[in-house]
């Protein structure tokens, strides 16, 4: 049967469908069901961790692992699918490029399907010089949904198989699919490109390509059903094994701690510090508390202010808040290059030089002379970067200092106008909910430091995943700055006064930035008052303490002398050949919602998210509710990303960094060309090819609050029921009344933990 008649006969099938409208509804629902299986993956610019099995969270975890095995982990693909994938990858690369190519895919602004439709007619890889196929490509359906409706019936698959078939078309190229899902939902930067319908566009292109290259593609279903029998999926048992080694011990220690310190009268503090809940804050808080009379708190790193930052330094604009929220206020703010803060003149010079360099490099003819002129300089740069990684950084600082005033800190900017876009009532709301959540309503110290965090790495495609996840993969400096300004606002303080929160006049709020790669904390305040001088002195000691711990962790040196460790840590941070500048959130294991005294004095090895919370001040459970439904969800995404990247680095991770290839400035491919590698690289979770660094275990949430309150909250939120009831997150509670530990079962009953090593 030739193609023409095949088309005719399929048109007949189409007509025999009950009615086109009904068919359309049916197919479109199948399409959206297929897309539900695909996780969302953010681009490198603002990478945040997500659960690669997010589409199966409504299922019990065992079942989800099995589904994941079927859809994502299968190793055998029918032969013709390879060619289909190759063509899909080629066009996805071309369309989603965000600035790698100098000459972009033509007609991109029409949208993916439209652009492809115009170009496909010329693609010899598709038509292979067959005239009939050429004609077919010349009059493809005008829109993507028409194309899907037309071509889905050409594979002779039964109605109940349509969803599975469409899912398989997506899950055989899961990386690109998950990026496409991101761009259809979250990509707000490129409104010029019609991205809202890009999910349909992609599926239409997949369908047509598949039809042309492999008309018998219904065999894909056979392979799927065969895999169903021999499903080599991940087993929960392995995860439980590692959990057994960690969870009971942790609970035991905490229970003990809860009994020991019932209520302790705190001395007056020199300063109070608020850190992000990020696991890396734990070590920092420990070091700060060891250093002096300091009190620390944990709160989500965006400090409750959903802002959009317009970075005047490099004209970038981004949302600095969790992806679950939409930013409400725009803040103009100059942060600058993460490693090299620059003044105006230098900035101008660099951008000018950069433009000239790029216009010569991405051009015809001119690169030939360019390499001869720049070759020797490239050689010198390599020499410096390789053997003295800190030298280029220092040189830049000196040059910046000569040209104009060197901006010493990333958070040292003027406060004027920072709060322009935020109404007073909103300011009060942010201030009040922040202070109440962490229960900082009295006993204010003279200085309260709000510490956002960010990383500083060079030559690292995954730089943004080391930044603050609560700020959408950016540094939290701007948010800290905004909240500090709010809390220093006299009008806000007056309003808070009326609500019973009395902030003494002496108390000042200062923004800080915790550099998670070098253990340095920068303070935004430049004045040299005695208290701040003391603070800065202590921060030096803190940096040495944490740097020593970090060096031990990396096995850099066995007996670190005090002066050496900071240098080593800085060097690691600026080393362009370093694949593990820091361990990031690897090792994350639990999420503790409790006042600090429950965990104080324990070395939790940077493995635990710590959220401050005081149940006595939260009688109706509203605060706990907001913690469980926002920060904990983010923590669960992070946990799952690391968990699955460690369990199967091919299917859920992005493989070894040594062969990474940055595609379109948005993502990673392996080598010449491959699927979009979503997930974390091997080096983020493994010490070497065999030895895993991130122990794969599920998140254990521990709440210091009465069981009744917690149960009530879970009852109200189906999302939480999904997570706890399906075993994605384990929940334990330390009952304040009797300091006993209870674990929540999958059927939502509480069982008292008697330190018996149980599995679930």
């Amino acid at each position, binding site marked *: 049967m030739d193609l023409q008649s095949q088309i005719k006969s399929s048109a007949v099938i189409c007509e025999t469908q009950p009615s086109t409208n009904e068919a359309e509804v049916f197919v479109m629902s199948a399409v959206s069901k297929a897309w539900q299986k695909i996780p969302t993956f953010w681009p490198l610019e603002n990478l945040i961790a997500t659960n690669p099995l997010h589409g199966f969270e409504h299922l019990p975890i065992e079942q989800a692992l099995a589904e994941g095995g079927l859809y994502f982990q299968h190793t055998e*693909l029918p032969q013709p699918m*390879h*060619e289909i994938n*190759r063509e899909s990858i*080629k066009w996805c690369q071309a369309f989603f490029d965000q*600035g*790698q*190519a100098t000459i972009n*895919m*033509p007609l991109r602004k029409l949208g993916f399907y439209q652009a492809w439709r*115009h*170009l496909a007619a*010329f693609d*010899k890889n598709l038509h292979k010089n067959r005239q009939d196929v050429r004609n077919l490509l010349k009059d493809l359906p005008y829109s993507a949904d028409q194309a899907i409706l037309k071509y889905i019936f050409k594979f002779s698959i039964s109605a109940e198989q349509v969803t599975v078939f469409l899912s398989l078309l997506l899950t055989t190229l899961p990386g690109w699919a998950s990026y496409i899902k991101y761009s259809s939902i979250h990509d707000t930067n490129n409104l010029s490109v019609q991205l809202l319908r890009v999910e349909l566009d992609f599926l239409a292109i997949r369908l047509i390509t598949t039809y042309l290259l492999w008309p018998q593609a219904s065999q894909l279903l056979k392979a799927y059903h065969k895999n169903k029998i021999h499903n080599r999926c991940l087993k929960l048992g392995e995860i439980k094994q590692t959990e057994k080694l960690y969870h009971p011990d942790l609970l035991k220690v905490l229970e003990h701690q809860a009994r020991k310190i019932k209520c302790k009268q705190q001395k007056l503090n020199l300063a109070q510090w608020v850190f992000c809940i990020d696991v890396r804050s734990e070590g920092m808080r420990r070091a700060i508390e060891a250093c002096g009379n300091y009190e620390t708190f944990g709160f989500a790193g965006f400090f409750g202010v959903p802002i959009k930052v317009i970075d005047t330094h490099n004209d970038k604009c981004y949302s600095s808040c969790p992806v679950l929220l939409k930013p409400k206020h725009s803040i103009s703010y100059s942060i600058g290059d993460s490693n090299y803060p620059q003044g105006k003149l230098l900035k101008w010079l660099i951008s*000018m030089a950069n*433009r000239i360099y*790029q*216009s*010569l490099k*991405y*051009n*015809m*003819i*001119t*690169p*030939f*002379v360019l*390499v*001869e*002129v*720049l*070759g*020797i300089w*490239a050689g010198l740069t*390599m020499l410096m970067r*390789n*053997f003295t990684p800190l030298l280029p950084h220092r040189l830049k600082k000196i040059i910046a200092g000569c040209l104009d005033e060197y901006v010493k800190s990333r958070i040292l900017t003027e406060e004027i106008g920072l709060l322009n876009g935020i109404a007073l009532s909103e300011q009060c709301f942010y201030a009040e909910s922040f202070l109440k959540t962490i229960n900082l309503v009295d006993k204010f110290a003279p200085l309260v430091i709000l510490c956002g965090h960010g990383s500083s790495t*060079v*030559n*690292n*495609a995954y730089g943004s995943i080391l930044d603050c996840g609560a700020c959408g993969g950016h540094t939290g400096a701007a948010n800290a700055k905004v909240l500090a300004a709010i809390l220093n606002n006299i009008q806000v303080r007056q309003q808070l006064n009326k609500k019973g929160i009395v902030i003494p006049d002496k108390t000042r709020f200062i923004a800080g930035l915790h550099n998670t790669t070098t253990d340095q904390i920068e303070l935004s305040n430049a004045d040299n008052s005695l208290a701040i001088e003391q603070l800065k002195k202590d921060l030096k000691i803190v940096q040495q303490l944490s740097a020593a711990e970090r060096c031990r962790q990396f096995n850099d040196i066995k007996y670190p002398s005090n002066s050496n460790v900071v240098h080593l840590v800085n060097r690691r941070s600026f080393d*362009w*050949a370093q694949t*593990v500048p820091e361990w990031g959130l690897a090792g994350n294991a639990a999420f503790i919602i409790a006042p600090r005294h429950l965990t104080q004095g324990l070395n939790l090895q940077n493995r635990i998210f710590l959220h401050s919370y005081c149940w006595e001040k939260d009688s109706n459970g509203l605060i706990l509710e907001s913690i469980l439904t926002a920060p904990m969800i983010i923590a669960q995404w992070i946990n799952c990303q690391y968990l699955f990247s460690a369990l199967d680095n*091919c299917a859920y991770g992005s*493989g*070894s*960094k040594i*062969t990474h290839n*940055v595609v379109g*400035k948005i993502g990673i*491919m*392996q*080598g*010449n*060309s*491959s*699927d979009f590698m979503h997930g974390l690289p091997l080096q983020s979770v*493994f010490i070497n*090819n065999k030895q895993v660094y991130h122990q794969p275990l599920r998140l254990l949430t521990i709440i210091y609050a009465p069981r009744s309150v917690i149960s009530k909250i879970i009852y109200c939120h189906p999302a939480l029921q999904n997570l706890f009831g399906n075993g994605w997150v384990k929940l334990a509670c330390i009952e304040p009344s009797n300091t006993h530990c209870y674990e929540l079962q999958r059927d939502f009953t509480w069982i008292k933990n008697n330190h018996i090593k149980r599995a679930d």
Partner: protein
Amino acid sequence: MIAYLNGKIFYVDTLALTMVCLISFIGLIVKSYSKRYMQADPKLKQFQSMLALLLATVIVLVTANQLLVFLLAFGSANLILIKLIGHEQRWQAARNSAKLAMKTLGLGYISLGCAFYLLYYHTGLTSIQSILQALRLENKSEVLVLLLLLVTAMTQCALWPFHKWLLSSLNSPTPVSAIMHAGLVNGGGFLLARFAPIYIIKPKMLVMIFIIGLISAILGSAWKLIQNDIKRMLACSTLSQMGFMFVQYGLGLFPFAIAHLCGHGLFKSFLFLNSNSAAQKKRSLINKPKFITFILAILCGIISCYCYLYASQQRFYYHDSLFIMIVIVFITACQFALTALSQLAKKLWFFVACASCFVGYYYGVSARLYEAWFKQLQIINRPINAIHLLGLLILAIAWLLMVFREKLIGKEPRRFLLWLYVKLLNASQSHSTTVTTHRNQYLSN
């Protein structure tokens, strides 16, 4: 003993010395880079020793004066390179990349072997330097030697139509790509420079080299501009740069070609080692040039060119092959001024002119240095012929098209351009077996 070795087995002249310096410099950097970059790799030790071995063989290669030593070093250097490309043994696509490189480089190796056999057959000598002096190139089979050597140079430099192996070699670890694009790919350029004295006798051969180089320079540039991933873009760029090096050889500008080889080697290895930061390096928007700016830019280009001539102390003749280089310098200076002028206020044109002068002067001085350094490889000023001029015209038009592309294309691109885009995109894909089409095939044996 050393003096004996130096005359008989090794021959160290400025060319060899330059290559030894270049390759050891890059080798040192790549070795130290990979020590940290590949710390998670269980085969790091093996990798490091292979790298050291590679350096050693390349050093032997560039200093060899015996046909057999040259041949052995050439073969073993390429074998080690192939082994390094397929470093990730568990990855089918990487193994295929290595196989493809093996096929193409093997062809080049056979061709080199035949050429050397013919050289020996005709002269009865084994020392390269004495052969170069003795060879007369009187009969056809002697000319065949030149062709065979040219084929080897082309496979080694991955020139069209032997480019596929290089575009498909990105499954290798980043440090391997760095040393490959900076060192091994240059092998072809070195080969031509080594046998330059006999190529100069045959002007037709030089024209052929010119054409071969021109094709790759244009194709590589066009492919580079449409690539969507950093590494393949760099590979296409290498292809075009190697093409340009051949163009320089074809013009008889041997010192320039070697200088280009070194400059490109350093530059490209830097870009490869730094390729992980590609996502953070944003492309700046450049204002579209106006006609008046274009005229001003051309004036700046002329001044800059004058400075270049002044500094390099080259003479300017229309009928001399140096003319082509000067026009290329002129085009680059124009582009430089064009970008600067369209970014700045009009008032600042004087500064742009000064900057163009400086750039021209700087490049002129370096050109003079190359000439002084490679005294033995003198510039052979060839008279220009129609082919040279045609090539120059093509290059200049390609540049103009790039500058005014947005005006030329307009809102609706023509069908012809769509066809061309798809054609170029398909032609610049890696070899199909070296693409990891299914992510679970990465490291699954």
